[in-house]
């Protein structure tokens, strides 16, 4: 077996252990070490991706070469690899983009902790992506939760701690349910390795035994993960968590953590339960309904919001609604579009958070709209980035959002009774997005009146002053453009990945 | 190549436009100073010479064009299948003739009159422009061409109404515009239908309605025709769209109102003639509800007009109301769809043109000399300006229709026609109404004469008022004379029209 096949395992371990390492390093070193680790992991994953694409079939990597049912497996397919690469890239950019804020918002002693958390988070994400074992998944979900909570509370003020507490409580509820679901599944199938469970579930499905426990298990797991990824009715914790934590945390949380859970859910659907079974279970209808409700209500909340950070946070709720709606459609195309939307939302939302922070920075650190007046002129790069991000969210052609919108719509068309709701919801939420995002864009390009200019001396920031951050922003912009313009190769990759996913 | 018949159209139009441009240019740099009568004497002299020459030339050309046999000119295509097309036919000839006479008379009259109105260049500019347009309107050979000049006439005659620029003048002009446009677009509505249902939009005596195309949609067709009648009737002051007349005439300068009520109102009549007798054809309408409604409207107008005139104290307004009623005589005649009545109608068109312009000119002279506008102020006017009042008297006798004055002839024909037409109750109702309104006419016109000549003993005469206004008296006299002459020898004209009537029915 090829050496490259070890990479996924190595990645997880590497980031897991680089945590302690970066704790002993000095702050500055830790920063670069962390960046290096993420980059390295990213490269490795690219190698893995290349490998899988070349072979064209997934491979199973048995930890310690124990075979099932005792052993613990990693299963690598194209989809996993793509996700891993993408997560690494986003993570890296988020980290780079957030440096300045981190250094001023987090006191010196905590800096290293931050990197530990990030490393943990990354490893847990990778594990969630790669693992083939349900219980391992659960464990890493918990690790994920803990590290995410750390990321939130690392910025020491009342709000963040409360936010962290809320986040913990909600996600513990979620993981409790997830665990229960797993236990049920285990108790009726007797397996923990996903592939085996699928076999068993298929038999059950054929024989029609244990339908109720099966449904309950699926429901529990879905709801648990939905809670953790802030699907509409359970999104109470989200705005605070994203709105007050330091910017890179917010970016990472919104673009990666929730996506990790969603990916796990996708895995459960495809690999654990089997898509055939899911299709005609009622769970996806629930997800669909809540997804659509999330799309609309998230946007409405965002419109009512007066702080730009919280507004973006609420818009995440809406976007996650999109993703669940895609699942809820219960068609291959729907899932595909959801996966694509995971990517493009990750890229866009991180971009938005970063640029928003720069905009607030040049507006006297106030996040309220009124103070943002004219911020686009004070920091050109951020202004541009924010505009692009907003347009992508609105689904403007040539940007990622447009493609995913098209995909969703196409997935919906022809569906018996979910078509019209989906299309209308898409249209309405587009309008709502327009309202709040472009309102902001116009606002940041409205020049201040001269007397205001005199009274509050906002600083100007040129790209030269924040090279790293500007670079990160531009990378995200480029990422969006790529997703928008050259979506075809990515889509084909994802399709292949999905096909070999189960 | 007889494009030359367009000369009487182009010549006045162009010279009118030139005048307008010059007036505009003159205002461009004259800031602040009184722009109203900025003409020095020699300038005015030049202007008068110019206008006079143009008028006469045009008149000669027009009459030549009209009476030198059948001409037709087909210009470029406005839209495919719809050329701008001129053809001089019997009706056109007649209209051109009396238009020319009235116009020349009024034109010369206004040389003097317009002194105290000011802005002469603009006035004469539009005056000539309208003249050209009118001639074109009479020569128009198909419906669209006619419509084209019809609208142009409205637009170019509007400034005449609001000439003195006062607030109510402008309001009146806008009202005039509104009503005319209303009418015009109602007409256009009908034209669209006719375009669908007629073989051609070229005027053909007896109508060119294609039965095959119409069959199945008679209902809509009738509605369309009714719309056109009401629409073009608006210009002719037919109820319900008559209200602009009494507003627009008094505020306009007297020559303008003379021209309006003598000629422009008649263009409405012309349009109706064209539509009913040359496009739709009488067979299609005879006996339909359209005819009934039309007759009712006209009779209503006839009666109401005279009634209102009777109650109207302001002289020019009174005349305006009388126009309303008189023109509806014509329309009533047309609505009977019967040769005799048709003859009567067209005769009355001509006569009324002369008479009414004469009356308005009288009113103008009175205003010019004394500034009096109300009827009750006119006591003893006859002592001061006898010849004027004599002309007035003859004219009004004509309007009332007392033999041997002209009006009598036309009304006779109308009554004849009504009695011969097969229109049920209207056979008797019509003449009755005509008679009644004739009495009313006497009632509102003659008091002026009576008070004018017999002011009572205690009236001290200031004579010599008529010196220096011969320029105005002559045209007036001419018109008055015409009314008498035509009254004495109506037959050539009558027979001419009767033949025409036979061709179209």
């Amino acid at each position, binding site marked *: 077996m090829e050496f490259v096949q070890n990479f996924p395992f190595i990645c997880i371990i590497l980031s897991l252990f680089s945590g302690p390492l970066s704790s002993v390093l000095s702050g500055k070193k830790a920063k670069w070490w962390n960046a290096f680790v993420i980059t390295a992991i990213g490269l490795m994953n690219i190698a893995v991706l290349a490998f899988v694409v070349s072979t064209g079939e997934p491979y199973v990597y048995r930890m310690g070469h124990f075979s099932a049912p005792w052993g613990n497996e990693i299963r690598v397919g194209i989809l996993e690899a793509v996700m891993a690469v993408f997560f690494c890239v986003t993570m890296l950019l988020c980290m780079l983009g957030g440096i300045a804020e981190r250094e001023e918002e987090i006191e010196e002693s905590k800096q290293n902790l931050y990197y530990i958390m990030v490393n943990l988070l990354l490893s847990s994400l990778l594990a969630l992506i790669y693992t083939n074992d349900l219980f391992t998944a659960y464990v890493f979900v918990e690790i994920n939760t803990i590290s995410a909570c750390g990321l939130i509370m690392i910025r020491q003020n009342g709000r963040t701690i409360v936010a962290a507490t809320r986040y913990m409580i909600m996600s513990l509820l979620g993981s409790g349910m997830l665990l229960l679901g797993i236990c049920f599944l285990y108790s009726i199938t007797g397996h923990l390795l996903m592939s085996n469970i699928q076999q068993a579930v298929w038999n059950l499905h054929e024989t029609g035994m244990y339908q109720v426990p099966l449904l309950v298990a699926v429901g529990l797991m879905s709801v648990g993960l939905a809670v953790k990824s802030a699907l509409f009715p359970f999104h109470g914790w989200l705005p605070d968590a994203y709105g007050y934590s330091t910017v890179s945390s917010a970016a990472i949380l919104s673009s990666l953590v929730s996506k990790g859970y969603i990916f796990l859910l996708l895995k459960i659907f495809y690999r654990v339960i089997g898509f055939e079974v899911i299709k005609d279970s009622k769970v996806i209808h629930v997800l669909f309904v809540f997804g659509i409700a999330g799309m609309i209500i998230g946007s409405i909340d965002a419109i009512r919001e007066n702080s730009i950070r919280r507004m973006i946070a609420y818009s995440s709720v809406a976007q996650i609604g999109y993703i669940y709606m895609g699942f809820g459609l219960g068609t291959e195309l729907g899932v595909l579009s959801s996966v694509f939307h995971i990517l493009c939302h990750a890229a866009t939302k991180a971009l938005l958070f970063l640029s928003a922070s720069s905009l607030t920075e040049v507006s006297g650190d106030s996040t309220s709209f009124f103070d943002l007046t004219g911020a686009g002129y004070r920091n050109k790069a951020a202004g541009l980035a924010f505009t692009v991000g907003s347009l992508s969210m609105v689904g403007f052609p040539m940007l990622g959002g447009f493609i995913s919108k098209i995909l969703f719509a196409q997935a919906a068309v022809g569906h018996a009774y979910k078509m019209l709701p989906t299309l209308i919801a898409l249209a309405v939420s587009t309008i709502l997005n327009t309202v709040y995002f472009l309102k902001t864009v116009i606002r940041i390009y409205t020049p201040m009146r001269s007397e205001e200019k005199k009274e509050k001396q906002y600083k100007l920031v040129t790209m030269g002053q924040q090279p790293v951050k500007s670079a990160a922003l531009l990378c995200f912009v480029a990422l969006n453009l790529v997703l928008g313009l050259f979506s075809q190769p990515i889509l084909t990759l994802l399709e292949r990945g999905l096909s070999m996913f189960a | 190549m007889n494009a030359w018949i367009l000369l009487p159209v182009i010549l006045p139009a162009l010279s009118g436009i030139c005048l307008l441009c010059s007036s*505009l240019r003159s205002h461009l740099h004259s800031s602040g100073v009184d722009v109203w009568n900025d003409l020095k004497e020699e300038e005015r002299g030049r202007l008068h010479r110019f206008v006079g020459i143009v008028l006469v030339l045009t008149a000669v050309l027009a009459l030549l064009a009209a009476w030198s046999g059948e001409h037709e000119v087909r210009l470029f295509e406005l*839209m495919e299948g719809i050329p701008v097309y001129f053809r001089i036919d019997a009706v056109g000839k007649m209209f051109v003739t009396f238009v020319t006479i009235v116009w020349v008379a009024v034109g010369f009259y206004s040389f003097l009159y317009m002194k105290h109105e000011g802005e002469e260049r603009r006035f004469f500019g539009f005056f000539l422009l309208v003249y050209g347009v009118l001639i074109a309107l009479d020569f128009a050979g198909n419906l669209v061409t006619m419509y084209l000049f019809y609208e142009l006439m409205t637009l170019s005659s509007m400034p005449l109404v609001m000439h003195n620029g006062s607030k109510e003048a*402008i309001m009146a*002009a806008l009202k005039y515009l509104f009503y005319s446009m209303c009418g015009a677009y109602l007409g256009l509505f009908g034209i669209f*239908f006719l375009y669908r249902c007629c073989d051609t939009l070229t005027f053909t005596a007896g109508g060119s309605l294609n039965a095959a195309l119409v069959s199945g949609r008679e209902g809509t067709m009738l509605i369309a025709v009714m719309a056109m009648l009401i629409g073009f009737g608006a210009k002719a002051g037919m109820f319900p769209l008559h209200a602009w007349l009494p507003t627009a005439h008094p505020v306009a300068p007297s020559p303008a109102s003379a021209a309006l009520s003598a000629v422009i109102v008649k263009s409405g009549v012309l349009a109706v003639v064209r539509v009913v007798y040359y496009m739709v054809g009488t067979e299609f309408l005879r006996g339909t509800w359209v005819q009934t409604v039309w007759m009712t409207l006209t009779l209503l107008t006839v009666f109401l007009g005279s009634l209102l005139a009777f109650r109207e104290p302001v002289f020019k307004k009174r005349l305006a109301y009388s126009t309303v009623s008189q023109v509806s005589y014509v329309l009533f005649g047309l609505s009977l769809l019967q040769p005799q009545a048709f003859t009567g109608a067209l005769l009355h068109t001509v006569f009324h043109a002369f008479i009414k312009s004469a009356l308005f000119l009288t009113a103008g002279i009175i205003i010019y000399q004394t500034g009096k506008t109300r009827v009750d102020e006119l006591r003893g006017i006859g002592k001061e300006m006898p010849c004027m009042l004599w002309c007035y008297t003859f004219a009004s006798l004509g309007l009332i229709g007392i033999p041997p004055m002209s009006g009598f002839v036309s009304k006779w024909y109308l009554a004849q026609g009504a009695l011969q037409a097969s229109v049920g109750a209207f056979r008797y109702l019509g003449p009755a109404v005509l008679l009644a309104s004739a009495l009313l006419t006497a009632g509102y016109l003659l008091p002026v004469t009576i008070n004018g000549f017999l002011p009572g003993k205690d009236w001290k005469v200031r004579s010599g008022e008529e010196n220096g206004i011969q320029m105005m008296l002559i045209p007036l006299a001419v018109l008055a004379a015409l009314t008498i002459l035509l009254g004495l020898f109506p037959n050539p004209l009558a027979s001419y029209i009767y033949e025409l009537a036979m061709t179209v029915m």
Partner: protein
Amino acid sequence: MAVVILLPILFGVLIPLFPFKNRAQMMFYIETVVLVNSLLVLCLLLNRPEQAFVLFRLNGNLSISFQLDGLGTVFAGIVSALWPLATLYAFEYMKHEGHETYFFMFYTITYGITLGIAFSEDIVTMYCFYEMLTLVTLPLIMHTLSREAILASRTYLYYSLGGAAFAFIGMIFILNYGATANFVPGGVLDPAKTAGSENLLLLIYVLCFLGFSVKTAMWPFGAWLPKAGVAPTPVTALLHAVAVVKAGAFTLMRITYYSFGTEFLRGTWAQTVLMVFVIITIVYGCSRALKETHFKRRLAYSTMSNLSYILFGVVLMSPLGLVGALSHMVFHAVMKICSFFCAGAVIYKTGRNYIHELNGLGRKMPRVFVIFAISGFALMGVPGLCGFVSKWNLAKAALASTHPLAVIGVAALLISALLTAIYMLTIVVRAFFPGRDFDYSSLDGIEDPGWMMLLPLVLFVITMFLFGLHSAPLIRAFTQLAAFVK
């Protein structure tokens, strides 16, 4: 083909980067770009390339591709003919607006994007350019950056993108139910796929139509247009009388005649519904214009109703209807841009925005107001000017169609013509007849604008007369173009 689209976009973007020594230099640069582009377009229109040009593929079935057919030719022709003139006009006008660099940047970019709409081969491309158009014209509206400008631009944005969101649905359906996404005369709907879901498709068509009709300011989505009047006049004139709104009309023609197809739509409830909307708009726009006292806003409202003339032609869904719509698209462009330019000249020279302030200006700016009067006559539909021709064709089409509402439509046309007469001519009358005791000394120092403004105006007037008196060839061309409609 991509060249003519990309050239202005590219150079437009470059404008702020260029180190212009002085204003004149920039003007020269821009005018050259625009002129050259127009010439290129002209060549393109004269010898049409047959095969489509694919710029690149978004993904599987979505591609950005251009092709040039009759309809596109017409639209591109209008745009490329008017743009250089408008630019010329803008040079003089923008003197007193400031921020010229950015203005002209977006102004030039818009040119390219509008052409993009004209040339787009499939509905996706058209949608993309449509969205971009919204975005690029936004800065032009908020150009003055005054409070109301911001509000106006916001409204514009919400309306347009909101509309686009619904148009999007239509696009998706074409992608899925159509045999192809391209524009094919007579529609692309694939009967095999549509069977059974006709009503659904009709519903979608109505949604899509309403969505796109936001750009054409159809009632009740027209509120943005008058508000957008705060933009500098060249913008209001060119974009909100020609480019943007006509782009809306153009897209509607596309989806009606080239995507959904008239055989599928004619005589359905969808047609009736839309016709009702259109007729309401025709009357509504005029009556609002009558009430409006702000010069440019009045014109904007009149645009609203005139655009609905075009839509009326479109929803007639007959060859004649298309002819009428096309002719009015062309003619209204000329008439309205002319009248807007007159308004702009007045504002530029006197800074007066309201109609009651125009008293007596006719004496001081005779050329402008005579031209305005002529354009007013044209809008009223006085025969001999182009307005009449299109009105005639529309009415002809309406009476030819069997739809019961068509006749009412004709009536609406005439009513609106009447109202037009009033609201245009009251302005003219005010200008020339300010009232007997009007003190002209208050107008001292006002005169006609310079040649840069007058030249376009004169050209427009000539065009109006030309088309008014001799429209036959043009109409014949349109008839050939519309021949495919069955």
